[in-house]
């Protein structure tokens, strides 16, 4: 039984990171009805930028701020250059275009930062905490990850429920026409949404890099998990992304612990398939039905 709880504890940190990436997908889907497959590519790119900043300045905090800013900027650039021209008449075209952006970002990263996988320095102690006479499967760094995730979720919740900008974003997502008639500058609000999602994804990237490595393709598996989580959560639910994200982190940890970490993606895809069969609209969705 102790092993079971140890595996659960060990999955919390990675669950929080998956949740953040899923959150970024949900933020874009809510406002534009586009699944942004480029999200992990954006996160990979901004994490490379963060790594450069960190090597340069030696400060993880400056790197984190740099990643946030780069994420927002990259999100806006992609929306302006790729999504706006395509989306005007075609949603599925827009989704395919995000795949194109992903490939372009990976190719560009390979050229700008050559040399394959690179290690991202550990900003905090990442070995298990010693407490009450034993070593626990959770580290100081895991607490930092969970703390940052919780802060972001709290901040986003306050933004959406308490501010005028948040109300504009929700209105623009639910009914752009009524939002426009009410005076909301919908296209500006959408651009802000891309910036916000870019920053959230960038945080997920910089948090996952120290526990994996960073290369142009190293976040691909994160896309699989985040996409699974976002769909199971209902694609438009922030709570769904967070809770299913953490849950998936725990499942991955259990599967890796009891069998082999190579089985984890298979189990995630099985969960996705089960969800699409039993509850295709997602567990936390606002909408009753969605064609899949």
């Amino acid at each position, binding site marked *: 039984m102790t092993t079971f709880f140890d595996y659960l504890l060990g999955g919390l940190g990675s669950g929080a990171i998956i949740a953040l990436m899923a959150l970024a997908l949900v933020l874009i889907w809510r406002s534009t009805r586009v699944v942004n497959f480029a999200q992990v590519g954006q996160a990979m790119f901004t994490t490379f930028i963060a790594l450069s900043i960190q090597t340069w300045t030696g400060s993880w905090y400056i790197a984190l701020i740099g990643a946030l800013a780069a994420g927002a900027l990259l999100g806006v650039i992609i929306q302006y250059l790729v999504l706006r021209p395509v989306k005007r008449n075609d949603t599925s075209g827009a989704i395919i275009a995000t795949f194109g952006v992903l490939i372009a970002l990976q190719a560009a990263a390979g050229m700008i930062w050559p040399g394959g996988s690179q290690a991202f320095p550990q900003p905090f102690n990442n070995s298990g905490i010693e407490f009450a006479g034993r070593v626990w499967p959770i580290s100081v760094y895991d607490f930092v990850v969970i703390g940052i995730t919780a802060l972001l979720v709290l901040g986003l919740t306050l933004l959406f429920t308490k501010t005028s900008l948040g109300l504009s974003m929700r209105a623009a997502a639910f009914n752009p026409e*009524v939002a426009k008639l009410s005076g909301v500058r919908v296209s500006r609000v959408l651009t802000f949404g891309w910036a916000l999602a870019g920053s959230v994804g960038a945080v997920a990237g910089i948090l996952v890099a120290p526990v994996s490595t960073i290369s142009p393709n190293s976040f691909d598996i994160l896309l699989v998990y985040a996409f699974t989580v976002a769909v199971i959560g209902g694609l438009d639910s922030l709570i769904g992304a967070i809770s299913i994200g953490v849950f998936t982190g725990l499942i991955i940890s259990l599967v890796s612990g009891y069998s082999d970490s190579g089985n984890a993606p298979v189990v995630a895809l099985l969960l996705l398939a089960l969800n699409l069969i039993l509850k295709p609209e997602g567990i936390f969705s606002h909408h009753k039905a969605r064609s899949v």
Partner: protein
Amino acid sequence: MLTITELSVNYGAVQALSNVSIEVPKGEVTAVIGANGAGKSTLMRTLSGLVKPGSGSATVGGVTITGRKPEDIVRLGVALVPEGRSTIPELTVEENLRLGGLWRDKAARNATQVQVFDLFPVLAERRSMRADTLSGGERQQLAIGRALMSDPRVLLLDEPSLGLAPLIVTQILELVSRLARESDLAVLLVEQNAVTALRVATTGVVLNLGKVVMVGSGSEIASDEQLRHAYLGY
């Protein structure tokens, strides 16, 4: 207040509105009536900026509104209550109202909200409930309330009677006409339900296949039997 001059709108080869001119004075309700497909909704969507006109113009107090974006037109004092469910069901009653005047400064917005709650007490009672829990009539009141939150000089009402019980329609329209008189609001009402619309309207405009075929006082149009048969179908 609202002056529409020779407005034409084309959807591809189809001319939805052709040379429509209407004067909507303040303090009164002007009703545009006509059968399905007469171009009534196109007129409303053009005035609010959702559809770009082919030619002609509309001005409010001398300022041209045609060709501008919806979010700018509402800032110039023209608010549309679109046809059907024009509230956002996922938001609460109060959020729907706040949305209507989000760009205004907070004090002015709050003052208008007090007036809207005075006008529609049921909205005050249900302020923290989601809009999809309201009845059809309450939702129409919310839609009008949302439009009023922008403190408009011109209120455009597109088929407010749609899907509502006759008694509720009468109540809502009488309230709108009182609002027009008391707050010096110019109201342009578009209705398929001619009888109800002409009862509250000072002036009636009959629209057929995108053209104005008659302008007259509400009672004049209601009593013109030939016209009723030809264009209004009753």
